[in-house]
């Protein structure tokens, strides 16, 4: 019987390329968050004065904007799949979302079976995509818009920029929360996760995986 996982069997959650892209996204985002914070939060402003943080912020911005391009370049199918998935929800997803509080509190049993991404992850990714777009556009306006826009325009851009970041940061907190609760870090660092746990959270996806290496490995 193959439906049941062995404790020594692991499934490939993330291959090297998405992991690298994630690392790029994470590092650039944290750079932007921290440098941005020094610009906005007075206890940190001595760090920012002088312009170093400002310039690091520009560097972070370039890396951040490069993330989708890099992803498309190194793993086009995965990138497209991620985007497609994030904006497509089936009946199970909706049911899942109705019971999201249970998942939030650590319960997977009884939740509808989920694909590679559960509905929460889809929503998260969709939010990241949308607010990354708004933060990039508003950021570019602030960076290059001087002289073209009046004070009002620049202020609106700044407000959009900061509210976008606020939402992205809240999303990040949720992201870290679920990573912690569901021990998900290993998947993003090493790539493989125990099959049993994968089956618990993403049954439909595990079912769809080819039953061979590298998607499925035995570890002793």
């Amino acid at each position, binding site marked *: *019987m193959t439906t*049941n*996982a*062995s*404790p020594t069997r692991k499934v490939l959650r993330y291959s090297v390329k998405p992991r690298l892209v994630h690392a790029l996204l994470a590092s650039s985002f944290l750079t932007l968050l921290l440098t941005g914070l*020094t*610009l*906005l*939060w*007075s206890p*940190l*402003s*001595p*760090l*920012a*004065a*002088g*312009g*170093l*943080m*400002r310039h690091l912020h520009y560097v972070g911005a370039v890396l951040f904007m490069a993330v989708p391009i890099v992803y498309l370049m190194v793993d086009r199918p995965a990138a497209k799949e991620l985007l497609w998935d994030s904006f497509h929800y089936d009946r199970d997803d909706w049911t899942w979302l109705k019971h999201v509080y249970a998942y*939030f*509190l*650590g*319960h*997977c*049993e009884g939740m509808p079976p989920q694909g590679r991404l559960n509905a929460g992850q889809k929503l998260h990714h969709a939010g990241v995509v949308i607010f990354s777009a708004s933060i990039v556009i508003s950021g570019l306006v*602030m960076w290059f818009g*001087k002289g073209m826009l009046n*004070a*009002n325009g*620049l*202020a*609106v851009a*700044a*407000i959009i920029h*900061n*509210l976008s970041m*606020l939402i992205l*940061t*809240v999303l990040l*907190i*949720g992201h*870290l*929360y679920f990573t*912690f*609760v*569901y*021990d998900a870090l290993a998947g993003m660092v090493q790539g493989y996760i125990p099959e*049993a*746990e994968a089956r*618990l959270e993403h049954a439909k996806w595990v079912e769809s995986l080819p039953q061979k290496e590298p998607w499925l490995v035995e570890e002793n």
Partner: protein
Amino acid sequence: MTTYAFLLDLGRCIGCQACVAACKTGNELSPGVQYIHISEQTRGVFPALQSSIKNHRCYHCADAACVAVCPTGALYKEDGLTRLDASQCSGCAYCVDACPFNVPQLVNGRSNKCDGCAEVVKAGGQPWCVKTCPSNALMYGERETIMAEAHRRAEALRVRYPHAQVYGETQLGGLGVVMVLPDQPEQLDLPANPQIPAVLNTWQNVVQPASVGLLGFSLAFTGLAAIIARRNHKQEVAHLHVQNSAEETAAVQPDHANET
């Protein structure tokens, strides 16, 4: 509360730049940095000419855009003037973008502008520019006194210039630099009715409280929930393993049987 103001009499100003130099030396401004910029404004065609002096500086708006957008509180209002505590400044340059008069500039990565000679005035002196002005085009004092003097001067000036007027009484909630203009503001490159976009006020009224509230709530809520949720998940995983090993035991035995 007493508020203070400058009087800037553009009728009297003859463009000698004494104020510029006094400001630069008294405030120890770096080379290339000026809080006051003097330039000539000419209208008409030879020989029917009119000219006045533009005295560009921080006008210390009551509704100060720079203060409204400053995320760190480095820019703030005090005694009716717009002060700057550069040690609090992060150099985000929102003030540079927001000022309707294009006044604050970044110097060495920090905002930089006239602070009304805060230290000098606190020590009992007059702002450097006021103290030195040979044309007596500058005064500093309680806003009411300054306003009365401005009206007195504008009235006297109307004998020569029929459009002479006071500027800054109401503009932007009242400027901390009350100007006596020899002509209509538009003629002197000043907006008749400058506006601070309402959106600027959302910075301190909406964005900052929302950020603090939402982030604080998220962290506190997820922090608490994490303890419970992780325990629940661990239990589920443990349960899963127990189930699996039971099923495995059951499934494996026939295989062994086949082998033997």
